């Protein structure tokens, strides 16, 4: 609900939601012409690069980090939560592969469509989670943390 908290604490979630929708826009456009590689793919490329940076940070140029997503705890944990609920996507590598297949020039129409649908399901869920989390941005202490010192 608007006004229940300071929205500036939710900035990571709002950013993630906007990014997911900007990417969904590209996917919707790609779905209209699945026979060819999409023309508009800036967000898809950004997602790929950001996922690569999560997997192997050393592989990404430091000057690029400031533009990437999934850089803070809010964003990366939301991504992991959605990944765990989407076994068909697999892990971060699986999600990268889905996106790279969509933009691959020699992917078949069916391959591209299948991957667009998978990506749309995933990023629609990510966008939904981002909105939900933006409503309660307080970073709760994970319940299990206390168990670390229980003994």
């Amino acid at each position, binding site marked *: 609900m608007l006004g229940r908290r300071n929205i500036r604490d939710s900035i990571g979630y709002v950013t993630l939601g906007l990014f997911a929708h*900007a990417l969904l826009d590209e996917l919707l456009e790609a779905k209209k012409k699945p026979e060819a590689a999409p023309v508009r793919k800036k967000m898809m490329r950004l997602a790929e690069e950001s996922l690569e940076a999560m997997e192997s940070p050393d592989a990404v140029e430091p000057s690029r980090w400031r533009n990437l997503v999934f850089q803070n705890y809010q964003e990366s944990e939301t991504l992991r939560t959605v990944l765990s609920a989407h076994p068909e996507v697999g892990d971060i590598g699986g999600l990268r592969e889905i996106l790279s297949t969509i933009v691959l020039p020699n992917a078949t129409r069916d391959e591209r469509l299948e991957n667009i649908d998978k990506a749309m399901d995933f990023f629609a869920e990510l966008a939904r989670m981002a909105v939900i989390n933006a409503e309660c941005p307080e970073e709760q202490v994970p319940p299990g943390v206390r168990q670390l*010192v229980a003994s």
Partner: protein
Amino acid sequence: MLSVQKNRFPLESGNSLPLDMLLQKCTAGHKLVSSLRQIIAAGRAERTYPKWSDEFLTYSERTAVETSARLNEWLESYDQGILPVGILSERLSTIIHAWELLHSFIKPVLDADNLKVPHPLVHFLTEHIGGLRVVAGAKFVTEISPQLNYFQHSHTDLRNAISFLQSLVRGPAIEPRLGFLALPCSQSRNLFTNCLLYHEVGHFIAEETSLLARIEITKLSDELESKFGEYKRWAASRIRRLMEELFADLVAVKLAGLAYTLSYMELIRLVSDDLTQHAKRFFVDHPADALRFREQLKILEHDKWGEYGAKLPQWAELKKISQVTELEYLVPKEYQNDVAMTKIWRMLIETLCNEDRLKRLHEQVDGVLADRENPYERFVESAAEVEECLGHGIVPSLERGGRSPHPLAIINGAVLFWLSGMSELYRVVPRCSGKKVEDRAFLENRVEMWCLKAIEDWLIRTK
């Protein structure tokens, strides 16, 4: 006429009237952005704003127009079966959140017109920071904050949010290196406490350079695995926040000099009689002041402020406050009666205070600010002139030997004069007693005004 349709992204909770709901959401979004657009237009018609604040307001106005246009387009796309209802509905919520976020910046920026900000200081700060290699060309928007605390503002990492909003609504581009400076409304014309704005500059540089981003956090998470197991990322995120605060302090003190640390100490003194005890306490988002002062002192000593600072009682106090052993630090108040969380916080504090980690942080700051000017060198060039002028109630912009005091000399000279030289001024100003609160406040305000004028003079002569 729009129609209700079925698709593969159903809305939650079995809403039977998605079209009504969508129209309602679109209307609410449109009303929100239109209202903001009108408020901005009215504000800009009545008042003038610092250049980059005005740019930000113009950007917001234009983005509002584009947002309204997209709301209509998206409804049409939905009607044509292109945009699924679930995605559209979530998109509308996201857009409203994005505007709620912008809303939280727009109002404080509208409050910060030219008459309410210490214009020369903000102008100099923009020149100063924009001249650094790592953030070359940086610009700052000024806000007036309702809170009397320079360290509690949420960070202004708006850049990515704005960039994705721009992509989504096809809005205008904005200055790529734009930071925000929040001035507490009661301090908006001051100089002394506004030295703390350099702390926000530190956060801005941390964000722009991504120094504490993914690669650092991944390394930190790996280090924390043995202590925190599956919660290593949570622990790393906590330590990252604390490290960023230290980073912002170190940047501030390296750029602004002793004035930053002394203004910081004076601010804390306002709310605590027992600085030594108060300074031991960690906060959830901020390291203990004792640790912050200790790390600032390392830079001050390296920059040679010790020679001058040793003459001040505040310097000895700073040293005393910062001599705290790791075990003496207190965990955040909200966890002090929670045995488990106290232990967890002890582990976090131990990790943060690791000597190698802090050394690396200093090295990072040194690397980022390799081309900065040492404020101490500027200060010693003109310290005597600034002190002499202020001691006689004169604007410290006397030109000697073809140069007038640099703003860094003025800022540091002003803070040192405020803390140790005001008695001289009470003697020379007739009918102003150092024993009356009103008289003291009057003269302190005058000193700040003279110094702001001197900074303005320097800007006019050199820029």
